[in-house]
């Protein structure tokens, strides 16, 4: 492999950072999904064990983790739509920048709606 100079960080714009985020969120969701399938599978094995695991899901820490997961899914999903539009819509490339901010806005609004309600659920369970 060629010798890469360890130079400065490349100062890409929205396109590059959205891709970085898309990749990170994709990986995060992937690993969550692995765990999620395994834990759900417990329903086939032993209801008690399943409920035991679900109880840990309901702790505050995991509750916050789930917030993060939802945020990741929101971004990944809507940015996925943005990517699809860039690929298939003739004017997609022109509005990619604008679309990124729309993605962030939609994700943020939905998140803002979800977070309080989710936290309510989490805290009410723990009380």
């Amino acid at each position, binding site marked *: 492999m060629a010798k890469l100079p360890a130079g400065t960080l490349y100062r890409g714009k929205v396109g590059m950072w959205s891709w970085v985020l898309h990749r990170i969120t*994709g990986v995060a969701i*992937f690993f969550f999904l692995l765990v999620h399938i395994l834990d759900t599978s417990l329903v086939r094995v032993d209801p008690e064990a399943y409920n035991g695991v679900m109880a840990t899901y309901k702790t505050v820490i995991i509750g916050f983790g789930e917030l993060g997961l939802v945020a990741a899914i929101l971004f990944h*999903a809507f940015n996925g739509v943005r990517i699809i539009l860039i690929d298939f819509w003739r004017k997609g490339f022109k509005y990619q920048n604008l679309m990124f901010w729309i993605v962030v806005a939609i994700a943020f609004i939905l998140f803002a709606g979800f977070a309080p309600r989710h936290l309510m659920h989490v805290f009410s369970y723990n009380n």
Partner: protein
Amino acid sequence: MEIVIETPNSPRKRKGANWEKYGWMYMRISGAVLIVLIFGHLIVNLWDKGVGAIDFAFVAGKWTNPFWQVWDVLMLWLALIHGTNGMRTITNDYAEKEWVRKTLNITLWVVCGALIILGTLVATTFDPCIDPNAVNYLPTVCK
């Protein structure tokens, strides 16, 4: 028409079959479908009653309905293959050594396959009344 190129200029060697186009299409199609499936899933599971309401009875209740069974199995397949294919892209990018790349990719697909089989079996062979004695876990249908 048969095109004859007068001077083929050392074309790159192509190794094996080439699925990249289909992979690319798949990421987009599955992504579009997953939006519906995942948000539906999230709304029902996290939004409606909240994570606090999820327990064996909840899941069992859902899966007595074939609609949700199909929904969840479809989601399982689409998301796992989407995610695994995405992870493959990433290992292809960053794994510099050929053997590392191969190993990681094989691992990814084995895990993916295993989980798909597992998840599908769980959802389709699921018996809500798995343990008649454990009365307090059971969904209402079993009572």
